[in-house]
Every structure is written in structure tokens, then in C-alpha cells.
């Protein structure tokens, strides 16, 4: 059984609940993502906490955020 990991993403450009929904859905669509939580900070960088299993790499998350239409400013991986 894979061990779950938590990744914190800094995302720019999110302004409203719809943005949160977009990012959440895109990230949840990434294979291996178990849970997504977004702390919306309108006008500044929002914190997105993603719980993943081991098979998920940064590039997939970056792509998902970009797909949702936002800029990923940073990734903090917590091992």
C-alpha cells in the first residue's frame, strides 16, 4: 500500500469560489490525487493542499493547475 503524501501548492490568480472549484476538479482528475483542499486568498497567492499517493509527480500537478487556468507559484513537498 502506497503511503499518502501531502503537497502544498502556491497558486496565483484565484479570485472566487469558481476558481476554487476549477482547481479542485482539475487536481482531483490527476491520477493518484486523493484529496484537495484550497484556502482561497483572493488577490494574493492561495494555498492548495493536495494529498496524493506516491505515484504523483510535480509536473502532473503543475499541468493540472495550468489546465485550470492558473499559475503555480511554488510547490512544497512534505516527505
Amino acid at each position: 500500500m502506497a503511503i499518502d503524501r501531502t503537497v502544498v501548492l502556491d497558486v496565483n490568480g484565484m479570485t472566487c469560489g469558481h476558481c476554487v472549484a476549477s482547481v479542485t476538479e482539475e487536481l482531483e482528475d490527476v491520477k493518484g490525487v486523493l484529496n484537495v483542499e484550497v484556502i482561497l486568498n483572493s488577490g494574493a497567492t492561495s494555498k492548495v493542499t493536495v494529498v496524493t499517493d506516491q505515484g504523483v509527480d510535480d509536473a502532473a500537478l503543475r499541468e493540472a493547475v495550468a489546465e485550470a487556468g492558473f499559475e503555480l507559484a511554488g510547490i512544497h513537498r512534505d516527505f
Partner: protein
Amino acid sequence: MTTTPAPETPAPADHTPGPGAQTPTPSGQTPAPSGRSPAPHRIGEGARGHAADLSRRLWFTAPVVTVVVALSMVPALQFGYWQWVVAILSLPVVTWAAWPFHRAAFTAGRHGSTTMDTLVSLGVVVTSVWSWWALLFGGAGRWGATMDMPLVPALPWFLDPNSGAHQIGAMSHGGADIYFEGACTIVLFLLLGRRMEAKARWNAGDALRSLLEMGAKHATLVHIDPATGERSQREVPAEQLQVGDLFLVRPGEKVATDSIVVEGDSALDASLLTGESVPVDVTVGDRVTGATMNTWGTLLLRAERVGAETTLAQIGRLVTEAQAGKAPVQRLADRISGVFVPVVMAISLVTLVAWLALGGSVQSSVTAAVAVLVVACPCALGLATPTALLVGSGRAARSGILITSAEVLEQTRRVDTIVLDKTGTVTSGRMALESVRVAGSPRDDSLGPSLGDEGGAGDRVHSGARAHEHPSDSAGARDNAREDSLLALAAGVEALSEHPVARAVVAGANSRGVTPAQVQAFTNHAGLGVSALHTGPEGSELVLVGRASWLVDAGVSIPSDLREELDRAEADGASAVVLAVVPAWQDRADTDPADAIAPSHVGGVDALVAAPPVAVVEMDVQGMTCASCVRRVERKLGKVEGVSATVNLATESARITLTREVSNADLEAVVDAAGYRGRVLTRTGTGAEGKANLEGPAGGAIFAGTDPVQESPAAGKVWPSAAGAPASACPSVRARDLSGRLGSARAGAVLVVRDTVKPTSAAAVRELERLGVTPVMLTGDNRRAARAVGDEVGIDRVIAEVLPADKARVVADLQEQGHVVAMVGDGVNDAAALAQAGRAGLGMAMGSGTDVARQVADITLVNSELTSAAAAIRISRATLRTIKQNLFWAFAYNVAMIPLAMLGMLNPMIASAAMAFSSVFVVLNSLRLRAAS
């Protein structure tokens, strides 16, 4: 509200709208089950009924009173017991004919208040009762008694040197006087005055009625057989149209109700509604307003709002409500009446007592007291405000100015500052092409403000564009030719885009006589720009038009002179797009099908061109708040196979292109699942569902809801392509892959577009200043852009870089500085500022603006011209001035006449005639407003 029942007709079973028709209207309202709506309220209907009632009483009263007066005033006609005939004839006059006054007086009296009717009623009752007393007990009923009624009043005996010689209307027998003719004439003149007032009300509503009654009377209902696609038409009364019905409007006919164009192109003349003289072009998907006149093309329309929901009916309601409102100045008149009437009654009593105390006869004392009551009747006071208000607001409505409340008139008097929102108010809110700057050529100063010529050794346009160059001896001519050829390319690509900038570029090309180039394989790079293929002499070239940042990111280099142009345009508040042409371009899909983004379109450009969209769906999307919502809706829809969407936040709409059949319900479900509210408005298609119903080579079908509609032979119109674009060059449903392939490309030209100042704005600003109102322009744009517009129209005070949320703050600040502010705006973002201005001043909404803006505004300017704002202030002030004149004359009259009456120098009949004249004067004075400009 008067409702006329819709004529009973058999249920329109043969044109039952398809399932699409049951789709709720964009506003979310589901049509009433009956589909019938009450006939629109007729303005002034109440006044007309009132006038008719008064007329009836008047027609009865006039001959009776003539007989009464003749008998009373001409002694030669007086036979034995004539006075009894007069008394009996007067009975119905002072009771039935005067009933409106008695009733009003009684109603007011029950609430412990007095109105002008109290005076009238009291005068009539006192006069009649006194006369009956005289007749029965005062000796006036004797056989052979005659009466002498001199028209020239005699001095009262205490002022007359020949004291006691003569008294007004004295019975020659020395008995008590009778005043039946006095009571009767009061009633007659008052009825006349009131009827004139009611007629004035009715006449004042003429302009509004003509506005409301200008709607189409009939509509050609179109029924499309769902099985065969066959169309049948029949003529129905316009009010029978239901939401979702399809109907035809031929050239020269009026649009029956607010609707959406399902098929056809035309231009609609809305001048009756808005005063705008230029017909507005409409095409598939456009909303049209009922009562506008169709000019050249035949349109198939789907009814969107009917009956009381239509724009026309709403305008009527607004005006009706406004006219029902009471101006503060009217309340003032009522307050004055409340004091005035008891005072007059007291004066009347004092007169009676004083006459008696000074030794006057009972008859002459009562005569004087009654004369005071009658002459003081402030009915002119009561007429002063409503007549002026009605005529004034009717006059305003004729100029396309809707005043939503009567208080507005009072406020316009004090307005000293007018805040004008720039976009959509001072400017048209529509982009227009300002200049085209070709790389390496001197700046084109013929179009924009001169900022110096920095021509010199610029870059040459690259080969793709150079191919279009016309060799010429003159460098200027060569530049012009190059400019035209690049503009033609840009317009060719932009013709397929719906973006406002794109429309401006295409319109700019058209106005310069440049024909848009033929392009293929159009791709919309949402939010960035557009690209398409153009077949030049050197083969296929890729034409890109879009934001500079997008092209730079894609690897296109922008020459320094074009960069300067871009900077200048941006600093100046204009928008600029860059044109780049990449020669010898092949879409990657041509060579490497695996790279194609949409697998269903493997086969590249040719396949793309050969596979036009199945359908285009126009959808209303509600609930979007920001740009990422737009992306979210686009992405969600884009995930459905064969679907691509362009979403517009401002219009809350989506244009969805389908390359395979997807039902309206599925599309709505996708949008709803994303957290928004999507409702399909129109569906225009050429695909399988449509083809099944097609017989001929027409090659297109329109979907009306889910009802396929056979298309007219003009197949090119099925696809809403812009002018000059081949029908096959449909917008692609996928993004063209540009990555890493534009490294060698160079920008060829910069196209600057700008929001244009309305032609009437400058004149309006001058007019406002003449009215003593200081214009202030408010905008979110940068200072330079704002300053440029301000200078153009002559506004000194410009407040720029204001966030939408801060507009109300700016208005409040001005108010705190002691200004009475009027605000003119049109957008949702102006609503708060409009409401803020309305608190202590005026909010004026442009008719083209949003419903929100119009709801909070005090005045709506239907024709969207700033000159209307000046006209609104002018007409309101003229109305207020008239009200004050009316009030002054009503008072002056009363003040002048009361002393005469107290001295007994007026007999009741002359007093009532003079009083009636004051009412007529007021009405005539008010009617002068009809000619106000």
C-alpha cells in the same frame, strides 16, 4: 390598471411550440401557463373615463344653468313664480352635477381635512340652502317677485355715498335674495374646469400613448412541422404571440414583440422607440425589440417576451408610475390648501359677522360671505401641479426621456454638477479602428493625434505581406498599399472573430474600402488572438492577429517602431493588436496527425475546412463573476467531444460550436454542473439533424429550439460568418499548435482601436454648461486616455482610474462638498453611483444600458445620447417653472379677489366665472410645455 381580456380564439394547436419553446426565458421566467398576458395598460385611460363622466354632468348642466341664469338675470323673462322653476331646475345641478365636489369634500372632511372641494361644496350648499330659506320663509317666493342682476358690482352701502340705494341682486320686492343661479354657475364652471383638466391629462398622455400603441397589431406566425419540416404561416393578432413562438417579419413590417433573430439578416429602424435615426443591423442570434421597423430583409424571429414583459410595456409602466407620483411641490400645494381653506372659511364667517355688525341686511351679508367662499376656491392651485407635470413628462417622453418619479423635477432645479461615466455615455462604448501602423513606415498621422514623425530606417515587412505590395514610385503610395494589404489580411482573419476589437478592425477595413482577404482554417486562441491560413503568391501563409504579449511569447519579434506605437496606444488608453504573417506555413496536423489536438479532426486543415460545424449554439450563462469563471465554462464545455465554446463575461453568453451532435439539454447540464446557469437561446445548424429535414441543395437548417427549420436558399447565411468570409472558412474547434514554430516571424503591423466619442457629446457638454451644470467625467481608464476624451468633448474636470466600486464614493464625495449631483451611466458598475446620485440629486441611465442601471435611475435616456441629459434637465426645469407660475397665479388671483368679495363687490356668479377662468389659465399655461424644447 385596465385589462382588456384577450379575444377568445381557439387554442393555437396548430402552432404549438416545440420543446425548445418551453425553455425558460433568459431571465429565468417561465411563461405563464395560459400564455395570455393582459393587454398593455393604456396611458391616461383613467383620465379619459373621468373626462367622460364630467362631460356627462356638464352636458346636462349647461342648458339647465342657461335657463336658470336667463330667468334670473333678465327681468323681462320673469313670470309669476319663475323663482320656483329656477329653484327646482337647480336641484339636480347642485346635487347630482355637483356630486363629485360634495363627495370629495365629504371624504376629506371625514379625515378632518379640508381641500379645495370643501370650499366648492360649502359654497354650493350654503347658497342653495340660503336661497331655499329665502324662497320659503323670506318672502322671495311670492307671485310676481322679480330680481335685478347687475353685472357691475355696486359699492357696499357703507362705502357708497348713496347708502342703501341698491344692493346686489336685490329682490325688487324688498324680500330675501335667492342665489340659485349663483350655485348653478359655480357648478357649471367648475365642471368645465375639471373637464378641461381631465382632457389635459388625457392629451398630455398622447405622446406616451402613441409610444405604446405603436407596436405591431398583427404577426405572421410560422409553424414548422416537426416531421416534414414544412412551414406554414398564418396571420394572428400580435397579442396572441406566446413566448417561444416563431414569427416572420417582412420588410416594412413592425416587429411584433421582443424576440431573438432565428434566421435572416436585416436592419431595424428603432427611431420610433429611441429617436436614433440610423437603422441597426441585426443577424441570427441578435435580440430585437418589439415595435421596431424592419427595413430590408425578412427575419424569422422567436418571441422572447410578450405582453406586459415587453420593453414597450415596461416603458409604459415606468411612465404611468411616474405620472402617478406626487412631486414635493404638489405636496406643498396640498399643504397650503389645508391651511388656506380653513382660513378662507374663517374670513367668510368674519365677513358675514362684520356685515351684520355694520348693519348690513342679512341678504347682503350672506351674499358677501358666500362670494368669499366661492372666489377663494383654490382649484387653480390644485390644477397647477398635475397639469404641468403631465404635459412636461409627456413632452419628455416624446424626446426619449423617461422620468420615473415626479420628485425628479424638484431635484433637477438644484443640480449643479453632472457626473458622466466615460464609456458608453460620453463615448459610444464601441471600438473603432483608429490607425494602422505598418512596420518601417512613418507613423500614420492622418488618423490619430500627431505625436511626431519618426519614420526612418524601419524594418521592412516580411515576405508574406510584401507579396501583396503594389510597386509604386511614391513611398507614400507604397506605404498605403502595404497598409491596405496588411489591413485586408487582418480583417480577413478578424472577420471570423466575435471580439469587439475584431469587429472594429473589420468595420475599419470596410470603411476604407479594403476588402477582407479570404482565409481558411481559422483558429481562435481564446483571450490571446486569432490565426488563419491565407493563400498568398508564395503559398500558404499563417496570419496571426492578437495581443503583442501573446505573439512575443510565441516567438514573434516586434520591430522597435511598432513597439513604440504599442506603448503609445496603451499609454493613451487605446487598444492595439499586432499582425504577423508567417510565410510557407503548414499546420502540423498536415504532416503529423498524431499532434492533432482533437482526434476526430485528424486530417488537418483540409479535413477541417471540409468539416464545418454541425451547429452553433448561443447560450445564456449566468453566475460568472470573473475571468476564471469564463475559462472554467469554456473548459467544461470543451471537454465534451465535438464542442468548443467562446464565453463572454460581459454579455453572460456563450457561443458554442458543435462538430458533432450534442443536445441543448446536455450542453446546459455541463454548464450547470460547473456551477453556473446555462440556458440555450438559439441553435443554428447545418448538421445531421438539420439535413434529415432538408430536401433541396440549400445546405443548411436552422434549429428553433429542437424544431428543425428549413433554411432559405441563402445557405451562406446559416453560418454566421462575417462579410467577405467564405462559408467554408468556419472557426476551427481546436487550437492551432504554434509552439516553437514562430521563432523567425516578425510583426508586420500594429492596429490601434479605440472607443469613439459620440458625435453629440461635445454639444451636450456645452449645453449642460449653459444650464449652469458643471460636467465631471468619471472613468476607470488611465489619466491620459481620460484626458484625451475630456479635451475632445470639452470637459475640464476628469476623474480617472476609478475602480467600479469607487464610483459611488466619488459621487458621495461631491455631495459632501455641497454639490447636488446628477450621474449619467449605463452599466452595472454605474448602478451604485446612480443610486447614490439619486439620493440627493439625479441618476440618469442610458437606454442602451443594463436593466440594473435603469432600475435605479430616476431618468432613463432612451436614445442613449448625452444631449438627452441636457434636454431632461431643461424640460424638467421648464416643468417646474410652469408649476411655480401656476401656483403664483392661483394665489395672486385668490389674494386679489378675496378683499373684493369681502366688500360685497362681487356677486357669486361673477366670482365663480372668474375662478373658473383661473383654472383655464393654469391649464393653458401648462399646455404651453408641449412646445418646450
